[in-house]
């Protein structure tokens, strides 16, 4: 059975390591500041007792005021999981750091989020539309796209 790690405990550890990086922690989830995402992600991946080596999925949700990008992490050797969330305020010209350097599995999924939500990931090697064609107007999965 995959153990869902407590977000609060991890958040406490992370707050010690990277002060000011955690916004809140509920249940299995920690909400991370966008700027500190790369360090936190690298720590989660490389810390031996966490070793989140497997990025299950990456997606985004449009909450009108902000976009929330959800990283679902699992550790194959330790069989536990954690959800990482990052918020992205505003509706235009959105940017987030890419995690493709850590988990190559994010490659297509970040492109998908870029295509359907319009959040660009800095550091992604090939940031362009994946499902829709170049020149398509708008980002379909935003709530205001009809």
């Amino acid at each position, binding site marked *: 059975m995959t153990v869902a790690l407590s977000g609060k405990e991890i958040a406490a550890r992370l707050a010690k390591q990277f002060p000011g990086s955690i916004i809140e922690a509920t249940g299995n989830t920690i909400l991370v500041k966008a700027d500190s995402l790369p360090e936190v992600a690298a720590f989660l991946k490389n810390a031996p007792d966490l070793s989140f080596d497997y990025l299950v999925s990456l997606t985004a949700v449009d909450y009108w005021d902000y976009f929330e990008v959800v990283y679902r992490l699992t550790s194959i050797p330790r069989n536990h999981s954690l959800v990482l969330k990052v918020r992205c305020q505003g509706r235009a010209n959105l940017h987030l750091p890419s995690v493709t350097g850590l988990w190559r599995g994010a490659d297509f999924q970040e492109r998908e989020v870029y295509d359907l939500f319009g959040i660009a990931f800095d550091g992604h*090697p*090939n940031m*362009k*539309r994946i*499902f*829709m*064609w*170049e*020149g*398509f107007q708008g980002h*379909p999965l935003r709530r205001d*796209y009809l």
Partner: protein
Amino acid sequence: MEVTEKSGFYVYSDVELDKNEGIQIEALKTASQNSIPDPDRWLDEETQRNILLTSLDAILNWARRSSLWPVVCFPACCAFELIATAASRFDISRFGMEVIRASPRQADVMITAGTLTWKMAPNVRRIYEQMAEPKWVIAMGACAISGGTFAQSYSVVPGYNRIIPVDVYIPGCPPRPEALLHGIRMLHNKIAKQSIKQEAGK
């Protein structure tokens, strides 16, 4: 050469290429907002054939309907009902149709099995145009007829008849193999009523 060297391992093609494709897609989208009328002129046409032409027609139509070679165009779900139709249980090879040609030049009938998106539309159009005359189209499944469940979607073409003229429609989501076989038989009947005179007048 469209390959450009970027950082290390990742070598991706130019965005220009995609942009050009995007322009083509948009152009096709604006050009095909109305559906193409079905090619059914023969229904109301006066039949005035002489004996020579009729027997020639008979032979020709017999040959054409007896060896309908489908082209590879299997976008989505219906493809697997088409494959099931080609397989042992239903076996379209009985009608001489097992020669599924990968090259559209050599095919006679396009069985459009699946949802068509605007991104795919120029390619399907191109395949249709690459096919040599005479050619027929069977729209298989709800998506092919009208977009089906996905008709309201932002990226789905509501029916193949926006892009290409369709001869036979087979409803179902997906249609059962029996329905596909029935559609093929209907196409046979349609071919049987064709005349080379119409082709000349086309």
